[in-house]
């Protein structure tokens, strides 16, 4: 990692170009950068106002990773190609939208009541959340089609198949397209972007679509990587997660590939400024990559991250922490410099030690002793810096909400095992907790309401309510 990258990183990480400020949560994790942040605050005390229950639970395409990597002795590996454990929601026009991998439908529910306003069929599982934009709702399905419905009443405006053929084969236990849409659809500058395909040997098609007609503006075939995981967009670029591999960066204007970034793979990703943060890697690491580079700048232990001005919130299986990012990165940089020096001294020392001891000259002996001292001194300095790293954490709490994280107003919301909770961003203090049915893998917040999607097929809506809990809207 070089200093230039670090300095640039420090500057850019301070920025936060996307911030959902309205009442909508128009796409997965709020915006094209998948920040998971809205300025909308949630009421301090939330109550379940309605619950949608799917007759059948979500059917994710993939199971988890192997139990271990025997050769490298890596244990507890994280699932790197799962993105559809729950029905993630998008919100617009006071409607809650989601697709179902259980019954192949797209749903629109009234945000206030959970009443079904409309639903539409597709011909395969809908694994990723739709995206709402200016009265339209765009959804990708495993049947290989991108659907555009009028958000208010569900009328089909157009549908487009990015792949050149309609070929259906058994895939993940269902009869689906050989080129399923497993990137969701991202909209930027009134254009839609998505990817179709799994197997590079069949060519994977990345495409830009005209929002009005669905016509393909450009199409880019890739023959080395799949497209799996929510696509992200910035002003210049598109970022396509590639399942267990690392995201592919494309020019948004013409679809030309810019690079494949370095890292340890995974379908979770967010953009902050020109930085891509993605994971969870082998065992739960989030890599930070600058958009102009494929190199990884830094990595953090954790499953999810929220980035705000000057602060990062890191979320792991067992904890949540707030980090003074500027200071932390500075220390890491300083320590890395010392470690590089120490490594060089080690190398020199080992070279001397390889020599026949009987042929060592007095000067060599002196050098040897000096090197040993340098190594020890540098070790002490490294230790010293390491001991200051914990000071960069503004706060840390142990908590057992490992599955999801968003930020609403001045609160962090976390999803856990049959539960969900809110934490004050300034202090980490838990301010609210409630039960949900299943593991809370999906969170969204809009207009004072919190939506929690679980792996049992529930969508819970929490809001401030003067009334007792209303009747559950059960399908």
């Amino acid at each position, binding site marked *: 990692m070089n200093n230039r990258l670090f300095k640039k990183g420090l500057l850019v990480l301070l920025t936060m170009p996307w911030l959902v400020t309205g009442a909508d949560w128009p796409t997965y994790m709020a915006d094209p950068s998948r920040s998971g942040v809205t300025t909308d605050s949630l009421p301090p005390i939330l109550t379940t106002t309605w619950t949608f229950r799917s007759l059948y639970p979500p059917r994710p395409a993939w199971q988890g990773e192997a139990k271990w990597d025997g*050769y490298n002795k890596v244990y507890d590996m994280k699932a790197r190609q799962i993105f559809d454990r729950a029905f993630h929601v998008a919100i617009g026009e006071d409607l809650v939208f989601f697709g179902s991998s259980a*019954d192949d439908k797209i749903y629109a529910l009234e945000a206030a009541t959970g009443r079904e306003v409309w639903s539409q*069929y597709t011909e395969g599982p809908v694994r990723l959340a739709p995206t709402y934009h200016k009265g339209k709702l765009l959804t990708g399905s495993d049947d290989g089609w991108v659907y555009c419905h009028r958000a208010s009443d569900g009328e089909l405006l157009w549908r487009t198949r990015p792949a050149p053929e309609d070929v259906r084969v058994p895939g993940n*236990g269902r*009869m689906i397209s050989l080129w399923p849409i497993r990137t969701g659809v991202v909209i930027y500058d009134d254009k839609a972007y998505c990817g179709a395909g799994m*197997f590079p*040997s069949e060519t994977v098609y990345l495409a830009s679509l005209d929002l009005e007609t669905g016509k393909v503006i450009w199409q880019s075939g890739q023959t*080395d990587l799949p497209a799996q995981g929510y696509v992200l967009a910035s002003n210049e670029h598109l970022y396509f997660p590639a399942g267990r591999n*690392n995201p592919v960066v494309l020019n948004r204007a013409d679809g030309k590939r810019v690079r494949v970034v370095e890292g340890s793979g995974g379908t979770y990703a967010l953009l902050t400024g020109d930085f891509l943060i993605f994971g969870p890697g082998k065992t739960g690491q989030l890599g930070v990559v600058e958009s102009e580079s494929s190199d990884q700048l830094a990595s953090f232990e954790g499953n999810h991250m929220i980035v705000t001005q000057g602060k990062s919130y890191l979320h792991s299986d067992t904890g949540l922490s707030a980090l003074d990012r500027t200071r932390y990165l500075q220390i890491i940089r300083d320590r890395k410099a010392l470690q590089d020096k120490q490594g060089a001294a080690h190398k020199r020392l080992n070279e001397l030690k390889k020599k026949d001891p009987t042929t060592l000259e007095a000067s060599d002996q002196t050098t040897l002793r000096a090197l040993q001292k340098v190594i020890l001194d540098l070790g002490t300095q490294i230790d010293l810096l390491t001991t200051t790293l914990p000071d960069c954490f503004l706060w840390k709490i142990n908590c057992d909400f490992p599955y999801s994280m968003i930020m609403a107003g001045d609160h962090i919301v976390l999803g856990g095992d049959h539960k969900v909770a809110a934490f004050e961003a300034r202090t980490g203090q838990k301010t609210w907790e409630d039960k949900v049915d299943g593991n809370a893998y999906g969170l969204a917040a809009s207009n004072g309401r919190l939506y929690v999607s679980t792996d049992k097929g529930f969508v819970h809506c929490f809001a401030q309510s003067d009334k007792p809990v209303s009747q559950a809207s059960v399908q």
Partner: protein
Amino acid sequence: MNSSFLTCIICFNTLAMSLCLEAQNQSEFKSRWIFDAGHLSRSTVKPVKGWLPGKIEGTTVLGKNPEHFIFDGKTTIMLADDHNQAGLPVDNLYVEAWARVDQPLTYGGLLGAIHDNGDDESGWLLGYQDSAFSFALASQATGRLTYLKVNENFEPERWYHVAATYNGEVMEVYVNGELKAQSKEQSGPILYPTRTWYEIGAYHDSNEYFKMTGGLQEVAIGDKPLTASEIRERFLLKADLFPEPEPKPEPLELRAGPFATWEGEGRVRFRWETKDAGATILTMENERGHRQVYLDETSTQFHEVLVGDLEKDSEYHYTLSSKSEDGSVTSTSPYLFDTTFYYEPVQLERRLQTFPTDNRTTLVETFVDQFIHEQGVTQGYCLILGAEDGRLATELAYRTDMQVMIAESDPVKVGELRKNLDRAQVYGARVSVHHVKKGDSLPYGPYFANFITSESTLYHGSLPDWSASEVYRVLRPCGGVLKIGQSNSGGSIKVNAAMLAEWGREAGPSNLRLSEQKGLWIQALRPALEGAGEWSHQYGGADNSSCSQDEIVQGDLRVLWWGEPGPRPMPDRGPRNPAPLSVNGRLFVQGDRILFGLDAYNGSMLWTLFNPEMRRANLIRDSSNMVASNDHLYLAEAGYCWAIDAQHGTLTRSFRVPLTEELDREYDWSYLAVVGDILIGSAVRSDSRYLGDDGEWYENFSDQETSKIVSESLFAFDRYTGQKLWEYDSNAIINSTITIGDGVIYLIESGNEKIASQLNARIPNELLTDTRLVAIDLEEGTRVWDKPQDFSNCQYMIYMSYANGKLAVTGTDKDKNYHIYAFNTLFSNPESGDSQPTLQIPGTMLWEEKHKEDKGHHSGHLQHPVIIGDTFYSDQRALDLNTGEILRKDLPKRRGCGTMSAGLNSIFFRHYFHSMWDLKSDKRTQFEGIRPGCWLGLIPANGLLLAPESSAGCSCTHSIQTTVSYAPVGAR
């Protein structure tokens, strides 16, 4: 002052003193780690004192009473991979641990940073040697380590406080507060290596890594030696927290099993056989420690328990126990059962009356009844060509486990059908409706449909909207059923026989036929594809040719299906695991102690069978534990071979190793082959197999990796009657050489009598002397011929393959030179220029070839050969099997571990990814993004290339991990 008040004061004072001492001692420590829930996360241990966290390299399991970290023999806690980063004490040292060692080691570690490599000795370690605690330390004054060992053994599974001090003059070891050993061999500052690991729970240096099995509750280190009285106080401070070890039951001896099979979601049936009769006890414990005990007092050797209400996606540990008549209880070690591995389709419950009860009700129910009764097809995919109201699809979804597809050309009907099916609560879950334009080709890949019918034809007699040849294209070979027409139970038959016949004729004169049984139908039962091969044994067939004889798989391939099993249930990719098998349209995959039966043409999971004792690895030096036939999968497990129904996964028959009753020794069923009605097996001393459970790769040259598994007898059964046909006794048959061709079994055996005295049947090269090439009659078990032959150059491995009357023995020596020997198996007159050709007797060596391995990496020296026709492919070369002439040396590059497989027209291998060499076009193709494992994972069979997931554990970033099948483009 009453006594209780006095007690309170004493208690308070004791507590206060303890807290005071705790605080005082804590201040003396440089670092201290306590292994309780408050300091443990999934991957790290937070220090109580100091800044250095421990990184858990392995599995985090927290024990109770008191809370402690459980070391499983594979897990350690890494503090620093360079001890220089840890700032360790130099002049004085105090180190202590509350430890429980369950399995002694020659060199075991609790905490330390040590280096001991020949004369290069440095660092220190608090640990144990065999069953005694020890403290090793090297000072700069001596440059050598002193291993100060306590002169009395610890008791496994008992907690101890172990402490060691070094004050620059004296080393001391204390156990439970008492001084147990002392040495003045070392003096002055501690000598540290340039770099070593600072680690908890292991003895780790550059050439040794021994991991602890046991528990640690606390570990601490300081740079000021504590006095004897302080150490005793440290011991007393926590001594009462640690309970006496629980008495362990005697181990339960199993004869077979346990086998576990699903009986619906959350319901599992366990079966096992014990050596002695006793009560049946099964204890299940979930991840939260909740236990449930299933007990049946009936004394039996054959045990069976049905367990219900298991939670989804959870791991359970279960123990089998038995209680004898005298009341003594014996138990197995805990086994793991993972409910994640449930792959049944969505189970439907009839909740709603969606359709009216009318004539169609009877019509549909009768049709489905007849179909299930006559055909027995209940799994896979069903295609309905045209539908009216969706009742047939709904009935099929409810009555079978099939996924049902409706192809309908009328868009209005499509909408209505979806609404009907949604109301019936089956849309998406089990039934899909696809709008497919009339006259168009069907949008499906080939071969997927187990059953094809038409609701529109059933109701109205209308013909399907798509041509019969196109419909036949998607019908599954090896038993797919097409039945389109009308039943006479539904009133008058409207379908026109001539038109129906005409429609069917288009698919070919013999494929579809008219039937008037209970109506008027056009129907088909699709046979196996012409030219399709099968992969019934580890290396293709019993001939070990690694060729399926499949003529179909060639040219450009396209993905046919993908799905489970994924990486989660599979063994780690490295340890040379058993190959998948495929016969008669089915695919069999061996996971990590779990078997899967799949439909090879659409990936439908037919069955799963769990068996925690089923595992075999290092097949380079052994034979596989499974073979397949048209109707059964055969699995060797312990002393049995089990016949498993290929379609349903049920255990239909067991065959027992004949030797078990006759000798005072337990034997396992080892080698397996099926030829016709004959099941061939071999007996090997129990517990000789390789398990590959520790991430082994078996790539290097050492007895631990290259010792060959040998059998002491070969035998045959009639696989249908169970009758034993014959038995052939031997000193030592090398399993990896047993080969069958043209009615003869060929093998290599060693006559070295020293083998008999070995502890198990893993025999190192130095004992595999006095070797003979032997031919045995398959029907009779009699020796046909044999011949002494030296194979001592086959050291890394030794394989034998058969083709066209020739035997080829392949091995590499310790310098990775290939040695290939070809033998004649028949009397023959080879053509020669001589006027009097020489008569060759069986066993005559035809040619011999030696070369340095060409590949040079990743198992290049271990490659199993492929024989296609008369061409022998080995390493990077192709040779004429008859003459040994080298035909080419440019076999495809094969980056990565693994070995080749073949059909008649293509060779398959790993070159980073799934890869293929088309022999006719010489085209070499990579299927990017997905890779096979480290042995044989790509099999051409049934006209397909089948690639079950076998890359599990690869922490590399291959983008897809799944089971996948490919078919030639344009396959019909």
